[in-house]
């Protein structure tokens, strides 16, 4: 089982699902040089958002902790702890701030 991200060029294989720890993330380098943060929750569902923390500019969101608030998954930035909804990219602490999201899927490796 691999995790794949949709980018301009199509579906990009990022890693084996088994190499993701539930509740934690990894960073992926995308073909255009940008970075995505990829997570899996405890139910095994994958999520992907931009890796840059908009509050500090550092590329660190992949290193935050994943949680659930109001039934929705989020990641808390490891720097100043703002929470970001993993499905919409919306910052739960600041309505104006949104990070981008990526379509993500798991695929059976042949």
């Amino acid at each position, binding site marked *: 089982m691999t995790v794949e991200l949709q980018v301009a060029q199509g579906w*990009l*294989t*990022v*890693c084996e699902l088994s*190499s993701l*720890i*539930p*509740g*934690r993330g*990894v*960073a*992926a*380098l995308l073909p255009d*040089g940008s*970075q995505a943060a*990829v997570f899996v*929750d*405890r139910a095994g569902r994958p999520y992907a958002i931009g890796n*840059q923390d*908009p*509050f*500090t*500019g*550092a*590329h*660190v969101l992949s*290193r*935050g*902790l*994943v*949680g*659930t*608030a109001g*039934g929705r*998954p989020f990641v*808390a930035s*490891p*720097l*100043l*702890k*703002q*929470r970001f909804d993993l499905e919409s990219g919306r*910052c739960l*602490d*600041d309505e104006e*701030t949104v990070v981008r999201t990526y379509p993500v899927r798991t695929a059976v490796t042949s």
Partner: protein
Amino acid sequence: MTEPLPTIVLIGHGMVGQRYLEALAERGVTATHRITVLCEEPRPAYDRVHLTSYFSGSTAEDLSMTPAGFMEEHGIALHLDDPAEHIDRAARRVTSRSGQVFPYDVLVLATGSYPFVPPVPGKDAPGCFVYRTIEDLLAIEEYAKDRGSGAVVGGGLLGLEAAGALQGLGLATRIVEFAPRLMPVQVDEGGGAALLRTIESMGLTVHTGVGTQEVVTGEDGHVSGMRLSDGSTVDTDLVVFSAGVRPRDQLARDCGLDVGERGGIAVDARCRTSDAHVYAIGECALAVDGRVYGLVAPGYEMAETAADDLLGREKEFTGADLSTKLKLLGVDVASFGDAHGATPDSLDVVWSDSRSGVYKKLVVSPDGVLLGGVLVGDADSYGLLRPLTGSVPPVAPEQLVLPAGVGAPVALGPSALPDHAVICSCHNVTKKAIAACDTLAEVKKCTKAGTGCGSCVKVIGQLLPAATDKGLCGCFPFTRAELYEIVRTRRLTSYEEILDGHGRPEARGGDGCEVCKPTVGSIIASLAPTLGASGYVLDGEQAALQDTNDHFLANMQRNGSYSVVPRIPGGEITPDKLIVIGEVARDFGLYTKITGGQRIDLFGASVDQLPRIWARLVDAGFESGHAYGKALRTVKSCVGQTWCRYGVQDSVRMAIDLELRYRGLRAPHKLKSAVSGCARECAEAQSKDFGVIATASGWNLYVGGNGGATPRHADLLAQDLSDAELVRLIDRFLMFYIRTADRLERTSTWLERLEGGLDHLRDVVVHDSLGLCAELEALMADHVAHYRDEWAETLQDPERLRRFVSFVNAPGAPDPTVKFVPERDQVKPDLAVLTIGGPVR
């Protein structure tokens, strides 16, 4: 050219003087005026009201009333040990003892009062003291060594305090009071009788209705006894005069200011003296009602009045409440309003129980208005009764003083008080002002209520909204301490099991949050050997709970790079090891800084560099310094006896032993410690969570200190400990803290929150009052036995090492966004500081 700022000279830096300075600062006057303070004592303002607590373990620093940095921040020039000696009102200048001349535009006299010593023969013999300043206390303490008995002349408030202090120094103590009862000013005959019984039952000897005729001296000229007015002679080794105070008005007299017939600098309702440029406030002033107030609350009010007058604001001081509540010699004594029933036609309601030493009297008018009262032995109701003074209480007065079980008392809460009731009389704060706040901290900050004598804190607590949900976060309805107990008693080692079994219903089955995950991770880690779990923070599910710092065993910095801190126990390091650190820093291009904790921080490592940096350090014999964790950081030390000519113990050895013993210990907050080799305190042990100071006969242990944003001096927990006793006590202290503290609660705030405070802590960890000590020691023994270095362990685990990459899909590529630029021959992050705001938890 700029005009010179107008100048205020304050003479006297006691409690009232300091309050005046704060009042000026609050009104912005410190920015528009130059302020000079002349202080006779060698130390800035301290809490004279709680002077006696010096003998029960408070330090001179604890008693300080002057916030650190206050003078600097407000540009106030404080001259200690240099009293004013002469005032030239015509030229408007003050000359101090050192000969300096200070011109003024405004002069404020806050010279306080001096103890009155009756003119009896022998009053100046060695062994005679007064009880007024910290220096007086130090002198009494020194003289009392190797002496067996003491006497206090005067059975008023201060006399009883002094007697308690003498008894605390181990002296057989007697009190000689001229009036027919103790505390004649505050307490009536019945109250005096109750007080006498209780005080005699504590082993003190009390003489009432007799005067002191002579202090008798022995062959060496030192005090040996006293002759009393009833003809008797009593033996005593020292005498403390506490026969009242007199206003210190000599400076004012010498420069021709008006003073009262019986002393006190005459002031008007704005605290102005007969010279428009001169104010007098506090115990040196004679108020318009003809009284000299010897209490701090009226002094504070005068300080505010004088500050307001300076700005042309109208505020008048025409008299004050003389209510007092004290715990003297362990007896509650309170007196308020018209305690003696001087109002015509007033009636008494009295409850007296001589078995338990309780005496309560309320004075009421025929139409039911509460006029005042006296409480001895049980003054709990003082906080409610005093604000009700002057109004008709909502229930019959007797119901307010009867103990439970006698005549169906009602539970009258502070909710019954009217909005204008004054709850804190030291700072004149009403119920309404307090009810506008949410927490005690907020009340203290916004209104100062509760920061004076402290007798109102209990009532304030009852006026504040009760926190309804003490839960750790949205996932758990429990506090950290409760979660700790759940994990410990049910032996739970899985976060999911804990969340699904004990979380809030809406959180079960979810992913938790960034608040409870690291908290549970820390609890499991600190209990790991005992639970039979792996203590390794990156094992299995534990890895998913750790904050990024713990997850990567390094400290994340603002640009996403990490810093690495090798442990340098006690700050002791060989040249070879120093060279290794230097080489590692040079080879990886790291920014290097010596920290405040006697270690070396290496900044700017990228994720993928971390294992290679550790490998070099571990090879050279270093281990993880846990600078990333809520764990023990450093144990700082001075060089101690080995090198220092003042050292009395080997502080380096002890610091190393302690640091190695507690390394890696997970706690609710980071922990810091220090060991000083002598009382000079070069290691700053009293600002640490636990600090050790060497004495000639062992070690003194201080706990609950804190540097940082809210500094707090540590409290002395135990003295003159052997090495083994010291370690055992610290074991117990740390484990008790880890078990009961809240998330991110440092030992300082924990200790202040702990019900019963330091005394309770001492009961638990020294006297084992809860029977917990064996268990606490066993938990620590488990921790010590199972310690493993997290860096070394990670290096040996290829599976875990795979996580140390910048990109999961490009393991060899470093993160191109982590960039550096040079500064002062080293590197710094190349990352703009963003200014987007946003709530931060």
